[in-house]
């Protein structure tokens, strides 16, 4: 893409009724050490964090954009992006009537509760469902349990020792091109710390922080679960999100100590571009969990339906003996979307186990790739992996690809990989028709059956919405 085209995308007015107020607190375009010093100064960061950023930036300068993924996109001009802007106040709408009808229709189809609809659409929330008070109640309950849950900037200010101890330990500054970029310029994100022995009293979700923070372009999330702690974290939501930033390069780091468990669920429905594949978000994310302690467990669940290009591999490094890594994924692509997603399971400790269930659905002219790595190190005696990757093709212009890498260096390891590709059979549809079920509904039932193994891993209300979301995304692509 030419820089002007990218420019247009960046400068596009916030669609669907949102207005961005013009404010002065924006860093000039371009990336240099000065920009990074500016970001760090604006955020009043300590010296060590500035060093962290600069080190990442120096790494980044020496790296080149990876070319191995099975995705095509025009070159990104990194000097044409503004890397810092103060949080933008959104214009509050008086009532739901002012919200774009298209967006309202989507909400209805998804069955998003009214107060959440308002929160998501930026409508001033009424007294009863005041999100601020809801947030306060939540924060109080979390504080009682000893859980720290705040933005990463607050964490740097209030808990610098914790952030310093864990930041960059799972995804180092020089890990990959986009992770290095993120480490240099990240401006927002979440920090979550669950102390020893605490079971987090509620699902931590982005719902109750949605109107205090917008999902950022270079988001940084760090979750630490101490010995025996448990947390379930939900990211994103089923509602469509329109964002002015085209490139998203987030980094998520999870650390689980002895006997700790982290469950991380994502539902992503960002703007995917129009039917002809114009526009849309580039979602280039590095997500990695470190099972540092014995018998720790990290479980990733993702439902990827949005973005023009999705490129992410939520991974688990199974360092502690007996630790467990899980990856459940549904990736749906339609029109001209491209997805190259999967996971990495790195078995280091003894008796480590991992399980991968990946379901890809491609429709339209889209391309959907599963790329996964299962690596068993020489010391990972008794390691066990099971992978299953199923693809479903809807229409004859789309593609489904599987690239599983299996590297085993220990003879006591057992690694299994299975993959199948299929389409919705004529006889299946005929069976439904003979029972009086119309094609559209039959297809939706078959797809729900196809993804069920993954959706059962999602928290209840998410699962219901995600089911409807799939139906919505595939509308018009069958029959």
């Amino acid at each position, binding site marked *: 893409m030419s820089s002007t085209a990218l420019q247009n995308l960046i400068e596009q007015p916030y669609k669907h009724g949102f207005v961005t107020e013009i404010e002065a607190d924006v860093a000039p375009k371009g990336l240099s050490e000065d920009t990074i010093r500016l970001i760090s100064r604006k955020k009043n960061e300590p010296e060590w964090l500035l060093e962290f950023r600069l080190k990442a930036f120096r790494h980044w300068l*020496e*790296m*080149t954009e*990876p*070319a*191995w993924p099975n995705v095509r996109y025009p070159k990104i001009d990194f000097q044409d992006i503004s890397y810092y802007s103060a949080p933008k106040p959104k214009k509050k709408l008086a009532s739901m009537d002012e919200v774009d009808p298209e967006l309202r229709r989507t909400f209805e189809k998804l069955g998003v509760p009214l107060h959440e609809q308002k929160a998501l659409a930026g409508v001033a929330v009424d007294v009863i469902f005041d999100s601020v008070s809801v947030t306060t109640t939540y924060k109080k309950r979390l504080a009682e349990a000893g859980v720290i849950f705040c933005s990463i900037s607050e964490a740097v200010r209030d808990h610098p020792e914790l952030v310093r101890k864990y930041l960059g330990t799972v995804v180092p500054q020089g890990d990959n091109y986009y992770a290095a970029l993120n480490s240099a310029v990240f401006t927002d994100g979440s920090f979550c710390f669950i102390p020893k022995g605490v079971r987090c009293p509620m699902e931590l979700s982005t719902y109750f922080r949605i109107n205090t923070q917008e999902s950022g372009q270079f988001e940084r999330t760090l979750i630490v679960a101490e010995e025996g702690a448990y947390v379930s974290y939900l990211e994103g939501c089923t509602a469509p999100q329109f964002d002015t930033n085209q490139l998203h390069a987030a980094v998520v780091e999870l650390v689980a100590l002895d006997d700790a468990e982290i469950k991380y669920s994502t539902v992503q429905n960002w703007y995917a571009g129009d039917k002809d594949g114009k526009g849309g978000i580039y979602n280039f994310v590095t997500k990695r969990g470190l099972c540092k302690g014995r018998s720790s467990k990290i479980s990733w669940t993702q439902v990827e339906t949005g973005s023009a290009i999705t490129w992410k591999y939520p991974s688990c490094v199974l360092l502690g003996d007996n630790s467990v890594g899980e990856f459940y994924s549904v990736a749906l692509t339609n029109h001209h979307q491209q997805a190259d997603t999967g996971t990495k399971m790195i078995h280091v400790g003894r008796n480590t186990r991992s399980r991968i269930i990946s379901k890809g659905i491609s429709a339209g002219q889209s391309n959907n790739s599963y790329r996964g790595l299962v690596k*068993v190190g*020489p010391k990972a005696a008794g390691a066990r992996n099971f992978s299953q990757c199923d*693809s479903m*093709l*809807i*229409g*004859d*212009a*789309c*593609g*489904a*690809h*599987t*690239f*599983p*890498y*299996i*590297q*085993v*260096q*220990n*003879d*006591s*390891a*057992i*690694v*299994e*990989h*299975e*993959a*199948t*590709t*299929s*389409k919705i059979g004529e006889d299946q549809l005929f069976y439904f028709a003979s029972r009086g079920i119309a094609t559209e509904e039959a297809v939706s039932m078959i797809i729900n059956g196809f993804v069920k193994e993954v959706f059962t891993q999602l928290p209840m209300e998410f699962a219901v919405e995600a089911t409807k979301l799939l139906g919505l995304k595939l509308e018009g692509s069958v029959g």
Partner: protein
Amino acid sequence: MKTEAGMKTEAGMKTEAKTYLASLLAAHPALPGGPAAWLARLRAAALERANALTVPTTRDEDWRFTDLSPLYKTAYERAAAPAAPDRAAIEQRFLPEAGGRLVFVDGHYSAELSTPQEGDAYVGTLAGALRRDSAQLEAHLARHVDFEADPFAAVNTAFLQDCAVVHVPGGRKVERPVQLLFVATQAERVAYPRVLAIVERGAELTLVEDYLSLTDAAYFVNGVTELAIAENASLAHVRVQRESDKAFHIASSVASLARDARYAAQSVSIGARISRLNHGIRQGGEGTDCLVDGLALIAGRQLADTHSFIDHAHPHGRSRQLHKCVVDGAGHAVFNGRILVRKGAQLTDSAQSSRNLLLTGRAHVDTKPQLEILADDVKCAHGATVGQLDPEHVFYLRSRGLSEVAARNLLTYAFAAEVVDRIPVASLRGWLEAQVVERTHAKEPGG
């Protein structure tokens, strides 16, 4: 990706790799001008291409797990024809079933050891084939293995001289297998074996390619095999690679299948310090059927790499692939099985399975079954497993009175036998069965 930084750190290796290819080509003799001008042009084009290419390193995705730097350390000279090869040792490997037989020693055709056929079906050298039908050779030679991006295929084509040619005319069923024997006898030399088989409409052929060594030293074999299978023809292809444990063996083998053609291949890799087989199957019409089996049986510090590519470009194609690796010692097996189903290749039925058995804690496997599907009405499945012998199976056999070692040997043998059993030549099957026992069997303690 060649990063600026990467260039810096790898400068030494790059130049080394660069000079490697140049020094191979420096030995390029003015080959005797053949009767065909097109052949000279082909060699010249390949030479030019080879000069433009660089050899791969582990930074290339296709060579990620196979480090060729030991090969690049010394560029061997091209082997001259040996004065008197050990006739008895070579004859030991003659297949009693074989009809036509061609023997190449260090890449040079040995007339005294060969039994060419000149009748209806032709089994002989390139020179003889050129006299029969030059135009047909032109249509096939270097048309199936592409040297555009492959430096090894380009060098092989540039040095193309004694090529084994098998031609079966339409409707003819060759009853007895044709054996092609490539023998290495000289240390620190390079040989360029080349095979072209043309099986015409409705014809049938069993072809055995056999690579062996009479020396324990290091040498380099860089081979290319091209197989053209016409409409409704059938080819059974057995490839046995048993080079010395210090040798380097890099080969490309491509079969092009016309409508309703059938291809069944068993490739066995036993020898070589580093071996690599690029096995391509190209579908050129509807309704083709292929069976692609592989077996790597390695130990010590050997590396056996198989990259297969099954290209489904037309509807109703069927492919079955079973690749097995038995890895002992500190061996390293690599498998990359790519199956591409192109747009419009509807009703393709493809199944691929990669099974790997690690016998020691130091053995190591990298496997990547890879499906790329661009058509919607297809049935494709692949599976991969890596594991050790099941302790319960061992326990069962021990409860029947077998010793631990005997039980393990029996199970290892059974694992490999699934591929060996499909080889259509009885004597070769017997020989390979003995090899499986010899190569992988642990000895009884104290015995």
